[in-house]
């Protein structure tokens, strides 16, 4: 009896570790699902927008420590991370992306260049060493629903944040006038233009929103790991795979694929080394994509 319960708690803890990875991956992928899935723009600098969010949180925490509101800062940091990443995304769209909508492969190269510049800028401003913000007290403890089960509060917080943000994105995309405009623009740009939608404005806001979501992902990321100049770029390929694997333009697909990939990876990590777990997960994803290129859940869009 005692052994089964140990096994159970181990499995539960393992599943929870997978849930934390799932949350961060999904937060990252949501922004990309909007930018890549809806607009078809490849933003290789998406990881750097996450890093912007993480560094914003770091700055906020240092500021909060100096002024004594460390317990309340995290909510402010989330808002600031979103706002700054949103503004940076808006600027990037205005300066660069809008000139390249007709050349998706070139967008990929240009945004890779942007990511290099941003990484070097981070390195010069914040240094090459990884930093992590001071966590407020309520985020550092752990929650014990039963003896032997130890769930870190920060992981729970990331989970809740993920649920809230996903719900928000769903509301915006499928239950708001703005969402209708975005989907109309995706499905048929010319007709959308003709019925009076300002498609250029929709493009700009959509791109900026995707970047803002990456900023939130970055803020959430600081609670479970430390941030360095290249943190974002480590996630970029995984995030793209999540979106492609789920089926572009499908919110549900993105959630399902982030869940599958995260659980597979953290489950396999339990059985073997981290690098082999990653290799097996990615190989499976690539093989499935080769058999089913449209992803798990594809939405039929007239091109």
């Amino acid at each position, binding site marked *: 009896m005692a052994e089964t319960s140990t096994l159970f708690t181990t499995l539960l803890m393992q599943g929870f570790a997978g849930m934390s990875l799932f949350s961060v991956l999904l937060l990252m992928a949501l922004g990309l699902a909007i930018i890549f899935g809806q607009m078809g723009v490849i933003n290789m600098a998406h990881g750097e927008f996450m890093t912007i969010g993480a560094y914003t949180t770091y700055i906020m925490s240092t500021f909060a420590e100096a002024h004594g509101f460390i317990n309340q800062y995290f909510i402010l940091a989330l808002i600031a991370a979103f706002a700054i990443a949103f503004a940076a995304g808006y600027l990037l769209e205005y300066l660069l992306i809008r000139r390249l909508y007709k050349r998706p492969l070139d967008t990929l190269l240009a945004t890779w260049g942007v990511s290099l*510049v941003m990484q070097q800028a981070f390195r010069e401003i914040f240094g090459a060493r990884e930093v992590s913000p001071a966590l407020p007290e309520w985020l550092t403890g752990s929650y014990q629903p039963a003896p032997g089960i130890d769930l870190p509060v920060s992981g729970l917080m990331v989970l809740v944040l993920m649920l809230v943000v996903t719900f928000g994105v769903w509301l915006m995309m499928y239950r708001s006038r703005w969402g209708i405009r975005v989907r109309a623009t995706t499905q048929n740009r010319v007709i959308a233009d003709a019925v009076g939608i300002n498609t250029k404005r929709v493009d700009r806001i959509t791109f900026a929103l995707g970047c803002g979501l990456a900023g939130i992902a970055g803020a959430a990321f600081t609670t479970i790991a430390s941030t360095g100049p290249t943190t974002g770029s480590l996630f970029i390929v995984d995030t793209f*795979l999540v979106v*492609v694997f789920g089926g572009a333009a499908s919110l549900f697909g993105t959630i399902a694929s982030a869940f599958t990939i995260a659980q597979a990876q953290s489950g396999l990590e339990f059985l073997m080394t981290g690098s082999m777990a990653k*290799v097996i997960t990615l190989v499976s994803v690539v093989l499935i994509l080769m058999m089913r290129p449209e992803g798990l859940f594809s939405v039929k869009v007239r091109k």
Partner: protein
Amino acid sequence: MPKKLLSHWITAKNRSDLINLALLALLLLVVLPLALDIFRLNLVGKYLTFAFVAVGLVLCWGYGGILSLGQGIFFGLGGYCMAMFLKLEASDPVSTAIQSTPGIPDFMDWNQIKALPWFWEPFHSFSFTLIAVLILPTLFAYLIGVAMFKRRVGGVYFAIITQAIALILTVLIVGQQGLTGGINGITDLKTLLGWDIRTNSARYILYYINAALLLGGIVFSRWLLSSKLGLLLVALRDKEERVRFSGYDVANLKIFTFCVAALFSAVGGAMFTLQVGFMSPSFVGIVPSIEMVIFTAVGGRLSLIGAVYGALLVNFGKSYFSETFADLWLYLMGALFIGVVLFLPNGLAGLFREPRQTWLLIKHTALMLVAKLRPARLRPEGK
């Protein structure tokens, strides 16, 4: 065949190509070896191995419209095949007598591996190695190509999948330290069939072999592009559906081109190992693969010869700036990516080929700047 090849070259349209190729050959075979000492020439040789990849990318990206972000995979496979052979030669039982298991590569011994893994065994043979360098990466490209192009996956998705494969291969190599040498790669390579590759004369010979292979590759690609296949490639890049409806198997065309590009990269990788004396995962992953694309983009994605200059210039820039202003290099590299895509979609070759267009571009930009800088009160009303 050679006669037909020649007649292809000497038409009025191709005369300038021929002159450019002759100039490149003169530069690589005469000017650089005379002007540079062997250390610098060896560096040029190293850059020229990247030019193989760049030339392959001109074929598959510039003409075929297939952007592969995983050319490092094939460069690495070619390089690793060669490195495995050289490493086995360097780890004979006599010179590794100090190890707990003599006769296996040193990094295996450090990782407590007692016997040579099975996939290392055939690399005792030089002829097997040569065949592996040529066949293995091409076969891998064929498999990827069949899986992707037969299902009509292309464009952006192909780029992401190839990038993911490059990542997988890097993680695998780094993770399996005992079998692959891990993050350090396969180092301390000394002789090729008893011939010391570290001496100056060996370096000269390898440089010339490398340059000759590269020029041969360019001539071969030029011939390929001037054949019907070249026409079809351009046609399918611009209107894939129309080529398909004309009855051509678009997938096979793409697979073939991708395989040729992979073969070029593999030869480059093998020559890299021979000239530089090691191979490591830092030439396999995402970052090197995408850097190889920028060599092609800078040189001009439609110019075989431009790609060589692109590889040389970007690498010279990289080694110059990372020696003198290390911090500046990433900014410059980033600006290069953005600038080339925005302002020079046909790279340096585009500047060279269309001087009139270039002049118009400069004039246009200058006028725009003047218009923007002019004080507001001088501008026409309402602006």
